[in-house]
């Protein structure tokens, strides 16, 4: 279970406060969506969950399975099962995708006290997951994300998620920049990972993605706080009414 308690965070460099008291609970097995206007703090929340040090938590706590993760580095959080699918995945020239996946999987398995996979085991494991997401062998050989299209990069994020088998999946605007077909492939990949032991947080600007990844709850984030919580129908309401009701309010 993910418990975010009165979370305040600011940009480390200039002290600008972005998150102003977020309270959120996602039990295992549930998928929650966070929607909100630009600049509401959606991506900041995703980064703070993953442990990016550009942000400073000034108040509150984040508990994952009852344990505070605030003092953990990003890699330690990953080993605890936290995964962030980036809005803008990074390109790493000179590192083959397969090599990267293997380094990540072995690091995580080692931290989790599991045995590293042998080369044939690893290849078999990755190829099966890759095939489901339409990721070719050729893509796996290329440097990570270098020269990939927007859709290919997002598929690669979901592939990494499938390979690392996290228990808390945070998807940051995974639909941005994708056409309908790409959204469907990516969403199907993410939906396959739904399960009783996994919590999922889907951050999106538009309702569209939630047709494919149907959430148990929808939260509206604006001005650094959760302004409203509802069922999946809240997303449809927002699609009609927009975010004006929330952005108009005084902080």
């Amino acid at each position, binding site marked *: 279970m993910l418990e975010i308690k009165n979370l305040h965070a600011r940009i480390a460099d200039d002290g600008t406060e972005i998150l102003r008291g977020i309270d959120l609970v996602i039990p295992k097995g549930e998928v929650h969506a966070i929607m909100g206007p630009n600049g509401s703090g959606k991506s900041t929340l995703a980064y703070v969950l993953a442990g990016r040090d550009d942000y400073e938590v000034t108040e509150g706590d984040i508990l994952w399975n009852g344990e505070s993760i605030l003092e953990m580095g990003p890699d330690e959080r990953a080993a605890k099962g936290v995964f962030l699918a980036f809005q803008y995945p990074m390109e790493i020239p000179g590192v083959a995708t397969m090599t990267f996946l293997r380094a990540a999987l072995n690091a995580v398995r080692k931290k989790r006290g599991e045995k590293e996979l042998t080369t044939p085991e690893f290849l078999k494991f990755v190829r099966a997951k890759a095939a489901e997401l339409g990721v070719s062998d050729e893509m796996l050989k290329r440097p990570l994300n270098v020269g990939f299209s927007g859709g290919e990069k997002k598929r690669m994020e979901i592939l990494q998620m499938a390979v*690392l088998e996290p228990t808390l999946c945070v998807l940051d605007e995974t639909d941005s920049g994708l056409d309908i077909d790409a959204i469907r492939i990516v969403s199907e990949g993410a939906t396959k990972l739904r399960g009783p032991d996994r919590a999922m947080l889907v951050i999106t600007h538009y309702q569209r993605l939630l047709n494919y990844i149907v959430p148990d709850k929808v939260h509206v984030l604006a001005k650094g706080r959760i302004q409203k919580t509802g069922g999946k129908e809240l997303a449809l309401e927002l699609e009609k009414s927009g975010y004006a009701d929330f952005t108009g309010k005084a902080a």
Partner: protein
Amino acid sequence: MNVTTLKTKAEGQLREQFDAAAGSLPGTGWVGALRARAMDAFAADGLPSRRVEEWKYTDLRECLRDVPAPASATPKSVSAAEIDGALGPLAGLDAERIVLVDGVYSAELSKVTAEAMVIELMSLAAMLKKAPAWLEGKFAADSGVVVALNTAFMSDGVLLKVRKDQDPGRPVLLVHARAAVQPSAVAVRNVVSLEAGAKLTLIEAHVALDSAASGALANVVTDVTLGDGATCDHIKSLVDAAGSTHLATWNTKLGKDATYRGFQLTASPALARNDINITFNGEGGKLDLSGAFLARGAEHIDTTLVVDHAVPHCESRELFKGVLDGRAHGIFQGKIIVRPDAQKTDGKQMSQALMLSPDAQFSSKPELEIYADDVVCGHGATCTEIDADLLFYCRSRGIPPDIARAMLTESFIGEAVEKIENEAVREALGTLAIGWLRAG
């Protein structure tokens, strides 16, 4: 004889060592005269200081305080297994092997199977003793102080020729092994020529045996001449953990339509100066030079190249990448000269350094001297730290920071190493570079 400018202790030692050794160095007659002239040329200028523009960042007069005694003419006995151990990932390379131990050719450790109609191979010392008249022309008169010292002191090396239109098929691995347990100085001269249409992959591996003393000095000059249409891949690796001073010069001349691809891996000498001088003598020549320099602690690696486009329609590419940690200083000086007649020259140069420490230093000095008006020439230099966003991305996938840093550093160097054409050599040098990175 002009000795008035020889002021420093090291300069005095060099003079004394030459006077003491002149009688026993291989070769008499014109060889002796050549050595004496070279010593006079050195004496006229002395060791270069920072006031000499080409030595601005490597003040040899300041750096070279003490010159170790010349290495013995009969080096320590070394086994093939010891050489293999020092070669590391290069040991398994399927190659013709030539071994020099402390600057002396070892027939016992060398193994060349290519037929004499393909390759001609001789020990330089043996030829200097015979002193045939044709050999004299191989030694350029005015090539700077380091080459002059090399000419004065050269003890041995190889004369290697690939005959017209021949291709030995396998790379030639020239091993410069440092074995002496006392600090010592070696001067090696290699003369390589490819006749028209010939092909050669030459790897010069500079290695130190476990027993080798630190504080050694090496002065190695390799002259390469490519005939018309010849193709040469020239690769050098210097991985020296025992703290030596390494002065290396490549003088390469390209004939018409010749292709020369050079790569230098320089890792962890106390001080290294790599001079690379390229001259295009025929139209249609192609040059691709690249390298990786890796330094930590107080190490100092200087790569200085001069590319002379003396004729039209030639192409040159240079990519040098450095990883600098601790208080290390990396230097890249790249001069491209385009002579008035050298129209349609296409030259591009890039040097990049990755700084792993705030105290490391990178000096980059590109120089374009263009006297022709219809040319495409460009240069660039960058100096960066490990990208924080990339580091976060790797860590968010569970990769610990030390491994993530190593991975990103390897990817940085990988771009240069990828330029090596021969796959087995590329992999071996990649392994050497990674080994260095992980040893930090």
